[in-house]
């Protein structure tokens, strides 16, 4: 009885606002195909998947794909690299953006502030492929600026593209360079949003500029910093494929420090051609990733419900 009434009311609502529901349909269909329909495919992680027979015809093999992955030493290496790189991106990205935002806020000339912000934001609009060209122009063994500078200083040149030990720093540097503009804009907006009367009160009490920054700006920015960092922490299992693959490509010499879960999954799928194996790793990434998103969102919600994702 109740069920029938509910169904009836859904039907009536759809009928009444038919046009409006039609307007949302393209987006909904897209979301079903590329969102919800992708979910059953996760099951192939437990199969010996065959393209010809598909998900219904391939034999089930339990956890073999997972066993294969976790028994290799690569599993821990790529997990470690993914988390290491993301943590460093968060720490350095936040730190540099924060310092810059505070310094920008002290600028008196708005025009100067605008022009320099524009320059710092610009790299964000470049693709990682373009960034890989820039890195190549710096670190290329034969022609790169880095080696030419080293030799002109009578130091021996370095084979950058076969020395994994440098690439953690290089990747962190490129990430900061490319995306610092965004965090700068956000932090600067947060600082501008601080109530001016705090500063007024501080000035009346005789505080100097540094003291105002230390005792007003930084503490009041803390919630923003924590929330942005926690939201980034939620995505820590996802190394950006775009970035790493554009820069490192299939250069196995650099894998020890640069190979992340996303690039490994890509290679298992495209180069090795084993979707089931790739899916097993992807599933591991998705599950841990989801727990992290859920957990960090819960903490964000506790600090400030308005900033929570859900």
């Amino acid at each position, binding site marked *: 009885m109740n069920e029938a009434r509910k169904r009836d009311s859904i039907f009536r609502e759809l009928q009444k606002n038919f046009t409006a529901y039609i307007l949302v349909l393209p987006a909904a269909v897209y979301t079903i195909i590329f*969102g919800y329909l992708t979910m059953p495919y996760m099951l192939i992680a437990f199969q010996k998947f065959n393209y010809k027979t598909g998900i219904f015809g391939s034999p089930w093999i339990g956890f073999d794909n997972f066993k294969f992955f976790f028994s290799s030493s690569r599993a821990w290496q790529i997990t470690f690299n993914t988390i290491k790189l993301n943590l460093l991106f968060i720490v350095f990205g936040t730190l540099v953006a924060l310092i810059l935002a505070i310094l920008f806020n002290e600028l008196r000339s708005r025009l100067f502030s605008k022009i320099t912000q524009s320059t710092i934001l610009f790299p964000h609009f470049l693709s990682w492929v*373009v960034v890989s060209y820039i890195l*190549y122009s710096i670190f290329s063994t034969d022609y790169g600026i880095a080696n030419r500078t080293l030799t002109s200083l009578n130091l021996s040149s370095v084979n950058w593209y076969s020395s994994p030990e440098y690439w953690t720093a290089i990747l962190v540097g490129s990430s900061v*360079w490319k995306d610092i503009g965004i965090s700068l804009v956000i932090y600067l907006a947060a600082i501008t949003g601080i109530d001016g009367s705090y500063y007024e009160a501080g000035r009346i009490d005789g505080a100097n500029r540094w003291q105002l920054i230390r005792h007003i700006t930084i503490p009041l920015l803390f919630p923003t910093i924590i929330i942005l960092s926690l939201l980034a922490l939620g995505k820590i299992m996802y190394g950006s494929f775009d970035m790493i693959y554009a820069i490192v490509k299939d250069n196995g010499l650099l894998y020890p420090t640069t190979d992340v879960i996303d690039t490994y999954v890509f290679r298992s799928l495209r180069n090795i051609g084993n979707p089931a194996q790739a899916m097993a790793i992807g599933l591991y990434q998705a599950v841990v990733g989801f727990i992290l998103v*859920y957990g960090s969102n819960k903490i964000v919600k506790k600090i400030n419900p308005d900033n929570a994702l859900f």
Partner: protein
Amino acid sequence: MPKNRLFDTLNVMFISIFSILCTLPLILIFIVSFTDEKMIQMNGYQLLPEKFSFEAYNLLLFGNTPLYQSYFISILITVIGTTIAVLITGLAGYTLSSMHIKYRNQLAMFFFITMVFNTGIVPWYLISSGLGLQNTIWALIIPSMLFNPFNLFLVRNYMKQIPNTLTEAARIDGANDIYIAFRICFPLSLPVLATITLFYGIGYWNNWFNAIMLVDNEKLYPLQYLLFKLNSEISMIQQMQSMMNTSPTTVLPSESVKMATAILTIGPIVLFYPFLQKYFIKGLLIGSVKE
């Protein structure tokens, strides 16, 4: 206050140096693209080369290169994709923001779930190839690019601020949802629509993931993927060279050609930058203020 003046000067100096350092790498590849190939081989990449040359651009712009084809593909997918994407997102945003729609919050949840639970590239690949998109122009337009729930929520949050009385008045006058969406809500939401146009547009222009996953046909390479291939496959440049019929004794301008191609892909971004920046910052600030 001399101490304050000193701080201001140092601050301006520091920020100037920092932003110059930020642009220096770009200036470097720009200059290399105009450098004589012999100079590069002798001295490496330099900010102040001894001899300039237009050879790389000459080869790229007037030779029989894949550049024009890729430019065409990139512009095509960016224009078609962005237009459809903004339309889909705008219409869905209208429905989700309309107070008279009973299930608007359930619909929002429906879109939101896919944002949080990411199934990764394997199902994405199987579905895209299952739809028969491989090696078609649609492979570059549809998968993961055509609709983004994040942009939907930007639009919805913006449209929610439109006073209800405006749309209600039109509804009482007999206007239907399509009329209200196009004639009332969209004109009042131009800033957010510009923002998502920019997000989608940049996404399409810079995308090479779809190409690497779903396209083998060189005729369909978008600019970014051509650039990606150019760096790893020197044979592509040799191909161009042979098409130019230049004598084999001349130096192959492979280094400067690479950098010139990179510069040419950045071109449109530089051109649109004032617009990009304005609406990008607006979008960031709308996005960070939730409901």
